[in-house]
């Protein structure tokens, strides 16, 4: 699978998290970035897989504890649905084994919810950075790794 920069200057995101409070807080956080656009927020694996393929998000933010399945089990189906998307695991379950499993399953990055306010946006930009190291944005706001 080849990496590619976002087709437009806006980054489209889909959030999968069953906590309405977290959904709202994340939406509010992302609203502070003009180029990050939350396309959809859903609360389960079933809901996200029912979204239209044409939505084509650049990034999928994925919680681990969903009501209908474990988040890690959703990574492969998400990448099959949206092959160009970068899946970023966003969870409180931050321990080494979980990170390893998430990356092995195909996640592009892993961000602890404890650090979401400071680490998520850099992780998004890092995940979308082309393999040649060039920035897909005219201006950058974050440089730290999402790991």
């Amino acid at each position, binding site marked *: 699978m080849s990496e590619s920069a976002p087709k437009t200057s806006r980054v489209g995101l889909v959030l999968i998290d069953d906590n309405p*409070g977290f959904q709202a807080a994340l939406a509010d956080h992302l609203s502070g970035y003009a180029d990050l656009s939350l396309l959809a927020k859903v609360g389960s694996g079933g809901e996200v897989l029912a979204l239209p393929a044409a939505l084509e998000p650049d990034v999928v933010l994925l919680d681990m504890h969903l009501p209908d399945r474990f988040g890690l089990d959703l990574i492969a189906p998400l990448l099959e649905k949206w092959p160009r998307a970068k899946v970023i695991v966003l969870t409180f379950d931050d321990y080494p084994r979980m990170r390893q499993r998430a990356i092995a399953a195909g996640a592009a990055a892993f961000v602890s919810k404890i650090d979401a*306010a*400071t680490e998520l946006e850099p992780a998004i930009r890092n995940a979308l950075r082309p393999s040649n190291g060039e920035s897909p944005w005219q201006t950058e706001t974050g440089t730290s790794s999402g790991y």
Partner: protein
Amino acid sequence: MADRNGNIIRLLVANERLEVAESIGRYLNDFPQVSVIGTTHTLDDTLGCARELRPSAVLCDYQRFKPETLERIRRLRQELPEVCIIAMSYDAQQTDEVIQAGANQFIPKFELSGCLLDALEQCTAPLS
């Protein structure tokens, strides 16, 4: 950072999801001034642990549409008048409600790493 007597802060972490409480507990245990003495999720477990372990501070999750999370703050305040209660929530609009229920501090749950240690420090600052 320490409690009013200069001791390590003995912290109980309560969250509706136990794995979240445990994750927050692991994060805080990296700080030498904090000792996480328990993690709980139900109202009964939280009250039971608080009675038995007598923490110096309790970090409580609050969710607006889950009244038991507000009840937990009220009951903790009733049973442990001196404990420092820090409420954390994704809903920043409910600050007044949790303070009225008995919390000493409110921190936005989306900004935990930036706010939590400061809240513990403020909550347990030495009396002047």
